[in-house]
């Protein structure tokens, strides 16, 4: 376990619906740090999508496998890692093409990674089949653009 005093760890079963617990845990950490409600909404959606992906693609909905959520709070940013036991996301984030979706040339679903990427300040996916793969998201307290 990470011994950094400002690290919070959450472990959830891979069951749809439980991502809400991660959303609310992260939201209260972000609120303690002083993030605005708008940024907290962004973070909640990003974390929900990362948890659902970890449950579905990483842990194949095996409820006995856990999704880890590690929140690291620093002076001006909040980093969230969402870990699963799978081999990680291989593909790059692709923006959804709504025209192609409407013409059924691409699946209606498949927007999770794009939303994560769009909603947080930094996002990356790390594949390390040995120790578990993770999505890493960061939001900054004082970000210049939006």
């Amino acid at each position, binding site marked *: 376990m990470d011994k950094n005093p400002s690290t919070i760890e959450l472990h959830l079963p891979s069951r749809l619906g439980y991502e809400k617990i991660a959303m609310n845990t992260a939201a209260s950490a972000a609120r303690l740090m002083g993030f605005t409600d708008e940024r907290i909404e962004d973070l909640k959606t990003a974390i929900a999508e990362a948890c659902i992906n970890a449950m579905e693609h990483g842990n194949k909905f095996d409820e006995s496998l856990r999704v880890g959520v590690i929140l690291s709070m620093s002076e001006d940013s909040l980093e969230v890692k969402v870990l699963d036991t799978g081999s990680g996301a291989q593909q790059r984030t692709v923006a959804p093409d*709504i025209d192609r979706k409407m013409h059924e040339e691409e699946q209606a679903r498949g927007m999770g990674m794009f939303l994560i990427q769009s909603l947080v300040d930094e996002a990356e996916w790390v594949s390390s089949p040995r120790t578990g793969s993770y999505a890493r998201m960061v939001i900054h307290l004082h970000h210049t653009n939006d």
Partner: protein
Amino acid sequence: MQEKGTQVKLDEVQCSSGTPITVIRFAGDITSVSQAAVLGTYQGLPESAKRILLDFSRVEYLNSSGIALVIQMMIAASKHGQTIKTFGLTPHFQKVFTMVGITKYTSLHPDEQTACAAFSE
């Protein structure tokens, strides 16, 4: 126990235009388990329903799987020559719908009146 589920209520309203508008009012969660609530409800509408209004004002949680179901409804509606407008999304989800590009095929309105009026434009 763990899935709150989607509640759906159907309404018919008449705006200034006089043409009846079918309102699908969602409440609760819209997620991957909302297939019946979203697509099932749509499929149960009569062919005559040409103007459809989606009311998201009582939705508590919406994720990308839920948005995918809304897109599937929009695909079906576009095939049937139906128009879909929406209202009641929080500013956050208005942003998310815009990011995804849905706003190219439906318009987002702050409330029922504005949405309703937009049908007659």
